[in-house]
């Protein structure tokens, strides 16, 4: 297989992993076995994967409350993630973090974050480390359209310009923050357009099109690695599920979700784009492998045990 094709199939596999993971959670969540809040990423896969296909473990990302897709794209172990979401000791955070705090620093994943706007200031820190130690790494923050209004984000953007940090600010515009339209909450109705005011370049891309994201981010990352400083990218995609599982979605137009699933499915779009190069059977084989992987992850997560109560008192400080 050509290297290019391998890369394409890898990207597809990652997107499929996210999709299958999320749709399975949507189902499993109804059994009552999953504690806490779940925010699903279905419909936005091309953003996380379009970004992370450029990154290695030396590069760091910072994520949001809707973090599963970013984690998977950045290489977090799917079994460990599923176990974490089930609250089990085998989870990536040993059951202490849960869906909104999955992290794996060894993979360059700085954590989902339940504080909206929390990631960008942290990510510029990872970028500062890269710059100071000369690792060649970059930092990428993911922020929603709703989160784009948080002061933390603007501060991080200005700081990144001032210090010429290798940071990419990715804004995932999925139309809503909870039930509030981005066209209400973003005064200018143009998230990418804010970047110029802070002195950094930006582009707006179709976030359901893997190639559009991949190309735009590639350019930004190249610039960052070369010392050219930060960039912003607004990627427009759609959230298929509720804000959280259980949201009755009264703010949706009739038939909105069905239409999105039919017309704005990043995986379908990807397959259509590559229909000539890659046979359906190859994609389907990946789908089946991923299905099996997620099956196994769920079965294992379900079977694994909860952390022992003694663990309550560990990991507060390095000393205990």
């Amino acid at each position, binding site marked *: 297989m050509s290297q290019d094709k391998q890369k394409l199939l890898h990207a597809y596999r990652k997107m499929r992993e996210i999709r299958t993971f999320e749709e399975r959670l949507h189902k499993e969540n109804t059994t009552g076995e999953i*504690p*806490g*809040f779940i925010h699903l990423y279905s419909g936005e896969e091309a953003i996380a994967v379009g970004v992370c296909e450029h990154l290695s473990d030396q590069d760091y990302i910072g994520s949001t409350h809707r973090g599963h897709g970013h984690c998977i794209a950045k290489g977090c172990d799917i079994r460990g993630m599923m176990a974490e979401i089930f*609250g*089990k*000791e085998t*989870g990536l*955070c040993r*059951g*202490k*973090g*849960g869906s*909104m*705090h999955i992290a794996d620093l060894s993979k360059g994943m700085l954590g989902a*974050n*339940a*504080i*909206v*706007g929390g990631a960008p200031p942290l990510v510029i820190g990872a970028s500062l480390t890269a710059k100071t130690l000369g690792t060649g790494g970059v930092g990428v923050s993911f922020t929603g359209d*709703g*989160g784009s*209004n*948080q*002061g*933390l984000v603007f501060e991080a953007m200005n700081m990144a310009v001032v210090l010429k940090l290798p940071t990419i600010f990715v804004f995932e515009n999925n139309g*809503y*923050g*909870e*039930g*509030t*339209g981005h*066209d*209400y*909450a*973003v*005064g200018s109705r143009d998230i990418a357009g804010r970047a110029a005011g802070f002195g950094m370049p930006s582009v707006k891309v179709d976030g359901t099109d893997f190639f559009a994201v991949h190309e735009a981010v590639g350019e930004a990352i190249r610039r960052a690695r070369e010392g050219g400083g930060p960039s912003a990218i607004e990627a427009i995609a759609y959230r298929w599920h509720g804000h959280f599982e259980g949201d009755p*979605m*009264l*703010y949706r*137009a009739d038939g909105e979700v069905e239409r999105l699933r039919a017309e704005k499915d990043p995986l379908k779009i990807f397959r259509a784009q590559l229909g000539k190069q890659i046979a359906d059977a190859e994609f389907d084989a990946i789908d089946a492998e991923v299905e099996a992987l997620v099956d196994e992850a769920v079965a294992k997560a379900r079977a694994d045990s*909860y*952390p022992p*109560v003694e*663990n*309550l*008192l560990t990991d*507060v400080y390095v000393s205990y």
Partner: protein
Amino acid sequence: MAIRTYREAVREALAQEMEHDPRVVLIGEDLCGGQAGSSPLEKNKEALGGVLGVTKGLWTQFGSSRVIDTPITESAIVGMAAGAAVTGLRPVAELMFMDFFGVCHDMLYNQAAKFRYMFGGRAKTPLVIRGMIGAGYSAAAQHSQSPYNIFATTPGLKVVVPSTPYDIKGLLIQSIRDDDPVVFCEHKALYDIKGEVPEESYTIPFGVANYTREGTDVTIIALAAMVHKANAVADKLAKEGISVEVVDPRTISPLDEEGILESVSSTGRVVIVDESAARFGFAHDVAALIASQAFHFLKAPIVMVTPPHTPVPFSPPLEQAWIPSVDRIEAAVRQVMEA
């Protein structure tokens, strides 16, 4: 009297005060939700009514100039509310989860709390900040905290932590009518509990504790969800002949110091139950009060039942071990009885 949930009692208080006074406005994220899209489809919809359903129906009733949906921008929410309060409105701002105060703490800590003092008494800041506190839902470390101790340490703020539907309605109306900034903490484990609540408007004064159980052997001091656990322990131990008094201060700033000291002076044995913190918490503030003001009445060391000095863990068995439990409260009572 009607039977209302704690959630309904909040909504009723808000609605009645908004009717009563046109200067009362609500400010927060997704208080309505649907008003917040500009597409024709969304324009006339109230989609969320608040993440907690607490404000449901209020936008339909009072419109966008009284129920103000905002972007995700807590510093601007609290700051705007504080600025509106000193200039003539009586804003009620919602922080959703109180844990989010970190991104806007200055607007409370250095601004709203201090206007009156810094300006030599020439300002009034009738501001209410509402939000959820409490663990128990696997909402993890950033959505489960009860930082009322951090608010109450700040001079200039008043802090309310109600435990029943009756109290929450009367205290919220009082908070809105109060001319000082009030941080109003709603415990998420209590939203669905029911109780008798007058339909008409009424207020409960700040700084007046409620004795939810009367007793002579031991005083338990507790807030919000912990009051119900303390009551359960009191009821259980009553059968064994241990007479437990449960004091619910309801507001922690101002605090009914007299009410607490009176109970302690009669029982001489104290258990304080507190979900805020293992250090510098409400339990410590009250223990210090007692150790300095009622020392000679004490027959036993004060026992504090608090969470451990750890963030709130996600996994249910860990989280359950984190929250002060009925068992730990019972054990504490037995401990002070034996001492």
